């Protein structure tokens, strides 16, 4: 199963087509929380943005950047400034960006269902839709996300997109969305 759809806006493109193309830029933010917030704001306005890994020259740790069509730079910047999270830097894409892991693994335990996205796993009790476990990951928001989400039903739990801050949090968001999809079938 692929989650490439999570990264597509209204002007959808093939990921590999875009990598390294001069019409794309990346927005660099102070931290991953801001990236996640900015992605939410831009996608709400249906901009064609994708969360990607930064090129090696600007990697500093647990980071993400937003890839966007350069031609829309001013409009997007205006919107993000209005929302109080302007990017630290905007640079054109000059080399292929890292692609997030794009596979889900779903495991059925009978009464429970587990979804893994990248290094993060989310487990739900099927009968009640209650999140019973969060595992995997190594960034400090994992224990925090687990504490906030375990014991809540899928449709009532805070989403990692809202309260997470790192790449592990972002991976958990993908597992969370896939679990919602699995449980709605």
């Amino acid at each position, binding site marked *: 199963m692929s989650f490439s759809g999570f990264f597509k806006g209204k002007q959808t493109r093939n990921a590999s087509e875009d990598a390294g193309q001069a019409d794309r830029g990346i927005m660099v933010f102070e931290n991953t929380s801001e990236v996640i917030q900015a992605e939410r704001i831009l996608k709400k306005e249906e901009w064609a943005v994708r969360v990607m890994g930064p090129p090696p020259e600007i990697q500093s740790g647990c980071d993400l950047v937003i890839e966007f069509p350069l031609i829309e730079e001013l409009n997007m910047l205006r919107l993000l400034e209005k929302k109080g999270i302007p990017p630290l830097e905007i640079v054109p894409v000059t080399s292929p960006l890292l692609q997030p892991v794009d596979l889900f693994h779903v*495991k059925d335990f009978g009464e429970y269902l587990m979804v893994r996205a990248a290094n993060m796993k989310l487990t739900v009790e099927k009968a009640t839709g209650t999140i019973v476990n969060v595992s995997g990951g190594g960034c400090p928001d994992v224990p925090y996300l687990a504490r906030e989400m375990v014991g809540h039903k899928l449709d009532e739990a805070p989403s990692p997109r809202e309260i997470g801050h790192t790449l592990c949090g972002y991976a958990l968001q993908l597992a969370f969305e896939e679990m919602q999809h699995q449980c709605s079938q």
Partner: protein
Amino acid sequence: MLAITGTVPSEDFPLVSGDITLEDSHIRIRNELIPVNRGTAALMAAAVKTAETIDHPAPFGYLVGDIGRGKGSRILYKYMTEDLPHASFQTLVFHYLQPIVHWHERLQHSLRAMKERPTLIADAGFMYAAKMSGQSAFYDLFTPDIGELAFLADEKAPHPFYTRGFILHDENLVPDLISRAYEHNNASRFLLVKGRQDYLASRQGILKTVDNPVEEALEAMGGTGDTLTGIVSTLIDSGMAIEDAAVIAMKTNRLAGHYARPTPAAQIIDIIHHIPKALSKVLEEKR
């Protein structure tokens, strides 16, 4: 002495350091009580239980609050960078810290400045930072799960989130992933890989595997890797060779999991309470 460094999921939790004790389902450092659910608290609790069982001194802990913004981690990195050159520990474990490359590098300078080099163990976010910095070989032991092993095996991935698709998180490929991690110098002196089957490996290849008992539900449970790291770190600190400590820890963690009769909804404290019984049995069988 064993020192454990990590974070707890609370934004306003202050930096504390001191001996660690376990009180029911909470660890205590000085006046701070922390619930044991997963993460560094689970590692510390497992270390305390292991130490009690083998009559070894309680571990020492450095903890700070961090919910993923990295603020607490930066405070702890700074503190450790200043404190370590004057400290004396036989074994040091680095755990749930925000992976920040430049802070990892500064910390390495401090580790090199210690009078006696401790045995260095890394897991979770700190292991990510070590790999990202290209300094994995500086460490004696990493304790990855299968997903993290795939990340170590991918020489281009700066975080498990970016592990390339052709490097599959597949249990059957563990020997290949281990070889690849060593080939690109992205592994520590020893690797302890937790999965359906646990592996101990070095640059020479797979040294030992443990696959019994099997509890399927443990895959879903948060914290089972943390307890394994806590057990093996304490055993190493007690003077055991890493090879022996790893095998005993793998067996103990699996047996404690078995004793807990877990479901995918079980919580890690259920397993931690079974560590003394499991460890005693494993040690008895070894005699």
